[in-house]
């Protein structure tokens, strides 16, 4: 179709044409708006729920305002210059290259005086105050939570009550691999969330068993590294009950993106009730370690432990990801005798490797994180799966005995 353009278009026609040219954008725009209605565009920190996070959000907002003003003022001046000081006939460029009198020196030095004021007073004073709040780990805390990062899960420990558990990603692998629809809390859900009471000051101690991890819950305003061999500390005092989600923030290996932090903040009574059920669970697990388990029981329990703790590296079918993560199917280490004739752990055998790990590799010492029953079950399972046919088993009671004598070869 040929559109004849009149030499001088009446204004009305041109408006109509403009509207038509805009009209074709409408469907695109409406889909975008429809999409936006369902989409989540967050332009700032999530809602703060601790004193540190409130402090952080306040200074963040103040600083963003300051730098936005600086940006607008400075570049308004530049854009003004770009418009006014263009090359055109009859316009001569100035030749100055430095301030030449007192008044000019005043105008030149003024921005830096303002900047010094902004840096060290306007931003500096609230910033120092915030540091003091953030590092206030010396005043008395109501309770302690010990967080241990390990590839690729968090272990939480309540030293006062002896509760200790591991928290791992609960999102099914099929969701990650796009084989099924992703859930609402995709990648931000765990099997055992850490539970904390609201309104109590919790001192959080952090460490790691292998590489550096970083414990981060954005709504707490807390991000602190978990360094192997050292203790770091921070604190939280959660204002209101809720479920708060975060992630590991320091690259820690292949599953770095898959070790979320989930905190359930509950009222104190609920926290005490939760603690009691946890303690009861620990007691029943301890007594179950003393009885004799059948091989079928161990195999079933072992499979569950394997899938949660081991399959990430050694893979669901035990094929591993060589060379970093060796296969367990037909593995030399798995296919060693269980214990020496005297019932001791022998170096570089299956039991040794699972309990004590292998330094310098992601293989950690599971002695520190798994219960006697879990260890016995997973060792038994690995020896009798993936084509490994050792046929033997180890009892939780044996692990308990080994652990008491140090379990080192």
């Amino acid at each position, binding site marked *: 179709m040929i559109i004849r353009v009149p030499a001088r278009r009446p204004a009305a026609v041109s408006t109509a044409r403009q509207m038509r040219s805009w009209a074709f954008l409408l469907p695109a725009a409406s889909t975008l708006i429809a999409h936006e209605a369902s989409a989540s565009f967050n332009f700032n920190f999530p809602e703060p729920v601790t004193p540190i996070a409130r402090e952080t959000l306040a200074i963040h907002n103040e600083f963003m305002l300051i*730098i936005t003003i600086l940006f607008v003022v400075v570049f308004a001046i530049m854009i003004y210059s770009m418009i006014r000081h*263009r090359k055109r006939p009859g316009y001569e460029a100035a030749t100055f290259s*430095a301030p030449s009198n007192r008044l000019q020196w005043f105008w030149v030095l003024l921005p830096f005086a303002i900047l010094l004021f902004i840096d060290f007073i306007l931003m500096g004073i609230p910033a120092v105050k915030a540091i003091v709040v953030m590092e206030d780990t010396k005043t008395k805390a109501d309770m302690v939570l010990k967080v241990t990062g390990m590839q690729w899960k968090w272990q939480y420990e309540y030293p006062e009550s002896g509760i200790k558990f591991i928290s791992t990603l609960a999102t099914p692998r099929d969701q990650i691999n796009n084989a099924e629809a992703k859930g609402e809390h995709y990648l931000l859900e765990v099997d055992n969330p850490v539970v904390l009471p609201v309104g109590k000051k919790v001192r959080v101690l952090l460490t790691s068993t292998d590489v*550096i991890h970083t414990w981060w819950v954005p709504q707490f305003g807390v991000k602190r590294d978990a360094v192997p*061999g050292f203790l770091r500390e921070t604190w939280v005092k959660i204002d209101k009950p809720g479920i708060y989600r975060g992630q590991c923030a320091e690259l820690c290996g292949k599953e770095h993106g898959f070790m979320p932090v989930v905190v359930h903040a509950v009222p104190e009574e609920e926290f005490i009730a939760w603690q009691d059920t946890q303690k009861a669970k620990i007691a029943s697990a301890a007594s179950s370690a003393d009885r004799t388990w059948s091989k079928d029981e161990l195999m079933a329990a072992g499979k569950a432990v394997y899938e949660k703790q081991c399959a990430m590296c050694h893979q669901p079918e035990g094929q591993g990801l060589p060379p970093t993560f060796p296969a367990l199917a037909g593995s030399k280490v798995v296919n060693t005798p269980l214990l020496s004739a005297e019932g001791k752990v022998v170096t570089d055998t299956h039991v040794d490797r699972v309990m004590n790990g292998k330094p310098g590799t992601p293989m950690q010492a599971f002695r520190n994180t798994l219960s006697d029953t879990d260890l016995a079950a997973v060792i038994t399972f690995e020896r009798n799966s993936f084509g490994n046919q050792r046929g033997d088993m180890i009892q939780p009671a044996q692990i308990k005995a080994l652990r008491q004598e140090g379990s080192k070869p």
Partner: protein
Amino acid sequence: MSTAIAHPGNPHDEHYPGGLMRWLTTTNHKDIGTMYLTFALMMFFVGGLMILAVRAELFQPGLQLMKPEFFNQLIGVHALVMIFAALMPAATGFANWMIPLMIGAPDMALPRLNNWGFWLLPPAAILLTMPFTLALFGIGDGAIATGWTFYAPLSVQGGMGVDFAILAVHILGISSIMGSINIIVTIFNMRAPGMTMMKLPLFAWGWLITAFLLIATLPVLAGAVTMLLTDRHFGTHFFNAAGGGDPILFQHLFWFFGHPEVYILLLPVWGLMPHVLSTFSRKPTYGYTAQVYSFIAIGVLSVVVWAHHIFTSGMPIPALVYFMFSTMSISIPLAVLFFCWIATMWRGAMTFETPMLFAIGFIVLFGIAGLTGLVLADVAADAQYHHSYFVVAHFHYALFAGGIMGVITGVYYWLPKWTGHMYSEKLGKLHFWLTVIAFNLTFIPQFFLGLAGMPRRIPDYALQFAEFNAISTIGAFILGFSQLIFAYNIWCCVRGGTKVEARVWEGAEGLEWELSSPPPHHSWEIPPVIR
């Protein structure tokens, strides 16, 4: 004597071997500069391809294209390639080409060292990327997967890709130190008669400070990665707490190099900016002396602020306060530079050719990097920004908008001088607008992602981050592909085009514009005298 001495025009001057041997054996600063720049451009595309693969994976939640371990390799090698094999060689290429022309020297002071400095680069680049290829043949488990920061103990645990990267960094470091020595010796000894230090072109000043920073900090990096190597293979425990070491020690050593490295990448560009701005404003550079002292101040401050990269690893309050305020004080000399750049434009007679457009784009976008950097210095707020996408956006504003766009500015500004031909202004402007729009489309969403709580270096993310990631990926692809226009424009300009005068730009001042375009193979054999 006039500053514009005609070249003697001896026919033997142009004698050099033909073909490959010319490039292998050359000691000519222009040939070596060309090789540095070509190498940098090639590696820029290699590093760019890597990150496009990463952005493609991040287009949607879920793992679509690659395994997490391969993702981790790509992000780390992308950074190492862009920093060590693209930006640094590009700046060294500029120095090789332009410093002798600008200070009236016939060549660099140490030409053979210069040749060796360049020819160390290709083996290093091969070492860095070879593990990818080896993994295809079932050897090893791929390249370094720790990010470019090599943090122990993750790097102690890593596969042989880490060893390759350590050796590559050693070689690149040796090359950079040799280049730095050469530049310092050249600037100190080979200036034309009458060119005092305070008449030295600002580009040379920027590079002089860069060279000192490289010599001061690269050995620390070399030491740190050597300690890592012995931890990995020879049973030492520098970074192993079980043996009495400390993983945080590595972070301190690394960032003692790593923070000055940012200024190593930026100082040559800051040196270049006043030349471009003054040329296209047709007005002398404002505040020459102030800029020189700012370069020196930034150089000194840059080696005393490193721990602001590791605020979250735990430090006593006095250390936190010290590193916060020392970092904030860098804003003063940096603001002096911004002030001088804008004052150079003020009341000039501006035109907006491609180099000027890129220079202005650089100032605005690098301004965002500087201002967000000021906020990042704040310890409590940093706890939220650190290792989130906010930081990723921040340092890309510094290193892409600051570093790469600065280098592009220099290429468009000097390309007619190097080739004797004018590039296509039309393509140049297209390249500028696509770059600026796509760059912001890529990185503005990343600021918001970081604030919302998305950590960096993750191959997959929660659903709340999906929209911004999709936008960012689209931006990244436009940004990446629009750089092909740049390569095409350079290619055409090298091949032919409108011939240009010695003084390519109307307002250009300086010795380099007194020589023909392209300059003769040997220039300034009789030094010009500056009065």
